[in-house]
C-alpha cells in the first residue's frame, strides 16, 4: 500500500498528494510517470511525476478532477493509501545543454514541467517558461516555476491574471522577436500541445511534447496508448511519453482519447450517486 503523507489543493479541482513510494522515488527522473490504482475496483491511470524525494522516499503527484477516478482520488486524505503505485515508467526527458529552452505549460501541465525545467536549468540552459490556464483560479505553481526559470510569462484565456490569451501567443512572440530558441517543451492538454507544435513548426524549432493517451498497464503490454509519430506506430508508455511534436498525428491522438467518453460519464455518475448515498 502507498500511503498519502501530504495533501494540498493547489487550485480549483486541482490537488497535490505526496505519497510514500521509496523504490520509485529512488529511481525517478524528469518526464517519467507512474500508474496508480485507488483500490480493488479502480482503473489504472497514468500520472506524470510532479516531484520526488529519493531520501524521503516519496513522490509528488498533481491531478485535476475530470472523471470518476480523479473524483474518487480527491476524496482521499492524509493517512489513506492507494492500492497500487507503479513506476517510474516511460523514457525520461532528454536533458542536455541545448541553449535556450522555452517550457510551455498548459493547465495541470505546470506540474510535470517543473522538474523538467529544473533539470534543464541545472544543466546550464536558459529557461523561459510560459504558464497558461483558462482562468486565474486554475493557476498554480507560479512561484515554483519562477524559481526554475530565467523568465516567466503567465497567461489566462479570460485575462483574469497575467497576459490575456492562450500560450501560443507569447510563444509566437518569442520565436519571432529575435530570441534564439533552441528547444521548446510543451506539456498540457493535447489540443494545447498540438497548437504549440503548429506554432513552432514554421520557425523550425524542435518541439518536444509529453503525450497523454489512455493507458492500462503502462509497461508495453496492451498497446492502448499507441500513437502515430512520423507515420510509425509507437507505444507512448515505453517509447515515450516524450515525442517530437512536429511528427505526432494529433487528430489520431485526440480521437483515441475520446474512446470512452460515454463510459467515463456513466462511471462518474455511478460514483457520484454512490458516494452521495453514503454521506
Amino acid at each position, binding site marked *: 500500500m502507498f500511503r498519502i503523507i501530504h495533501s494540498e489543493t493547489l487550485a480549483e479541482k486541482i490537488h497535490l498528494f505526496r505519497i510514500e513510494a521509496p523504490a520509485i522515488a529512488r529511481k525517478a527522473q524528469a518526464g517519467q510517470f507512474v500508474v496508480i490504482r485507488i483500490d480493488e475496483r479502480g482503473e489504472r491511470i497514468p500520472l506524470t511525476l510532479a516531484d520526488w524525494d529519493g531520501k524521503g522516499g516519496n513522490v509528488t503527484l498533481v491531478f485535476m478532477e475530470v472523471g470518476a477516478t480523479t473524483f474518487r482520488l480527491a476524496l482521499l486524505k492524509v493517512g489513506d493509501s492507494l492500492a497500487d503505485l507503479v513506476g517510474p515508467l516511460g523514457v525520461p526527458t532528454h536533458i542536455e545543454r541545448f541553449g535556450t529552452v522555452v517550457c510551455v505549460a498548459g493547465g495541470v501541465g505546470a506540474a510535470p514541467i517543473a522538474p523538467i525545467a529544473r533539470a534543464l536549468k541545472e544543466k546550464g540552459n536558459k529557461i523561459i517558461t510560459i504558464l497558461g490556464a483558462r482562468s486565474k483560479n486554475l493557476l498554480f505553481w507560479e512561484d515554483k516555476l519562477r524559481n526554475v526559470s530565467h523568465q516567466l510569462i503567465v497567461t489566462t484565456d479570460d485575462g483574469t491574471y497575467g497576459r490575456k490569451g492562450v500560450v501560443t501567443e507569447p510563444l509566437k512572440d518569442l520565436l519571432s522577436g529575435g530570441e534564439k530558441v533552441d528547444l521548446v517543451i510543451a506539456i498540457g492538454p493535447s489540443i494545447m500541445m498540438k497548437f504549440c507544435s503548429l506554432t513552432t513548426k514554421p520557425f523550425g524549432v524542435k518541439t518536444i511534447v509529453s503525450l497523454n493517451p489512455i493507458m*492500462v498497464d503502462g509497461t508495453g503490454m496492451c498497446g492502448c496508448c499507441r500513437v502515430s509519430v512520423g507515420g510509425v506506430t509507437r507505444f507512448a508508455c515505453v517509447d515515450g511519453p516524450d515525442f517530437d511534436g512536429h511528427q505526432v498525428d494529433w487528430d489520431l491522438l485526440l*480521437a483515441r482519447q475520446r474512446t470512452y467518453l460515454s463510459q467515463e460519464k456513466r*462511471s462518474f455518475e455511478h460514483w457520484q450517486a454512490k458516494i452521495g448515498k453514503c454521506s
Partner: protein
Amino acid sequence: MAKVNLNREPMAKQDPKTRGKNFNEVALGYSAEQAKAEASRCLQCPKHPCTEGCPVEIDIPGFIKAVLDDDMPEAVRILKDKNSLPGICGRVCPQETQCEQACSLAKKGAPIAIGRLERYVADWERANKGALNPKTTLPKPTGKKVAVVGSGPAGLVAAADLAKLGHNVTLFEALHVAGGVLMYGIPEFRLPKEIVQAEVAYVSNLGVRIELDSVVGKAVTLDELLARGYDAIFLGTGAGAPMFMNIPGENLNGIYSANEFLTRVNLMKAYKFPEYDTPVVVGKRVAVIGGGNVAMDSARCALRLGADEVYIIYRRSEAEMPARREEVENAKEEGIEFKLLTNPKRYIGNDSGWVVGIECYEMGLGEPDESGRRRPIVKEGSEFILEVDMVVAALGTRPNPLIAQTTPDLKTTRQGTVVADEVTGKTTKDKVWAGGDIVTGAATVISAMGAGRRAATDIDIYLKNHS
C-alpha cells in the same frame, strides 16, 4: 488382462446458449463417481508412456490409482510432488498433444482423460483444504537468495521449486496481482481467477515473498538485484508485448490488441463496469483476427459482453489453426462464425475515427512454410468488405523489451527472446536464468512450467556448488 474400456467419461459443460451470456466456468468437472469410473479405465501400464508425455513428469498412473483407491490425500501428494499448479494445468494444458496422446489407449481413440482427473484432484484439494492441508515440510534454509521475475506459470513454478529446496525466494510482478497471463489473459470462464489465486497462495505459503507493482528493468535492474545480494535470478517475464499487422487504419477506435481487450475484461473486470471502474467498448459485430487460443478467448469474451455477431478471421484453413481443438469446438457451439482463408487488407473508419469495416482478401494455401503449415497466399482481386464495429487483433505476442534494454550483457535474438540453454535455461549473463515464453516466444502454460522447473533444478545445483 481385464477388458479394455473405451468409453471415455464425458465431462458436463454449461449449455452453449446459457454460457454465452455469463462468465462462469464452461466445463463443470467430474463428480466423484465419474472420476472413479474414468480412473478405473487406466491400464496402469508398466512403462508409463503418459509420464514421458508430461513436460513436468507427473506420476500419472500413480495419482490415478490413488483416485481409484479413494485415497485422495495421496492423489494430491503425488500430483503436487511434480506440479505446484494442478488446478490450472487440469484446465488449460493441451493434454491431447501431451500425456493423453502418449496414453496406451490413445491408439484406440479413447485415452484416459488425464486432464479431467488432474482437475478433479486439484478441485478436491481446494474444497477440502481445512480438513487436509498437506503441509510440505521445507528443508533447513540454505541462506541463498533468489529473485524470480514474473509471476506467470514459469515464475510460479520456479519460485515454488526453489522454496521447496530451502532457498529464500522473492517473486517480482509488474502488475497488481500475481499470476501473469493466467490472470490477465485466460478468461474466467476457462480458468476461474479464484483457482489461480489459490495456487498463488500455495506458492506464497511455501515462504515465497511476492512483490507486486514492481517493474524489473525500470524500478530496479538485474544488476541492482545482484548488487542487493541476490545469488541468482530467474526471468520468467513471458511474451507480453502485442504484435500488429501494420496495415492502414489499425489505430482506429474500436480496434484492440487481444492483450488490451483481455486485460480490460479479465484483469480489470470490465465485464462488471461500472461497479469496476475500467470500461471496455464492445461492438455488435466483432471481428477477431487470428486462429490461436487467444483469438478463441477474445471471441468468446466479446460474445459474453453482448456482441450479436462474432467472427474469427484466419488466413489459413481450420486444419492449420493453432488453437486447441476443444476451444474451437466450444467457440463454434457458442455461435462464433469462422471466416477462414481470409485476411485483413486495411481497416475502414468513419469521420469520428471509429472502425466501421475491414477490407479483406480471400486467401489460398501454398506449399508448407518453415512452421510446417501450408503458406497462405493472397488471391489478387478477391477483396471484399466486412462491416464490423469492433476488432480484436490476436496476432501473437513477443517478449517485453524492458529488461533487455537495461541489461546490456543479456543476449537476445532478433525476435527479442532471451538466449538461454534449452535444458537448464542458463542465459549469457552470470547468475541469470530464463524460461518460458521469454525464451521460446509465445507457447503453452505447461511448457513454461517445465522450463521453470528445469531452471530451478539448475539454479539449485549452482547455488550448492557456490556456497
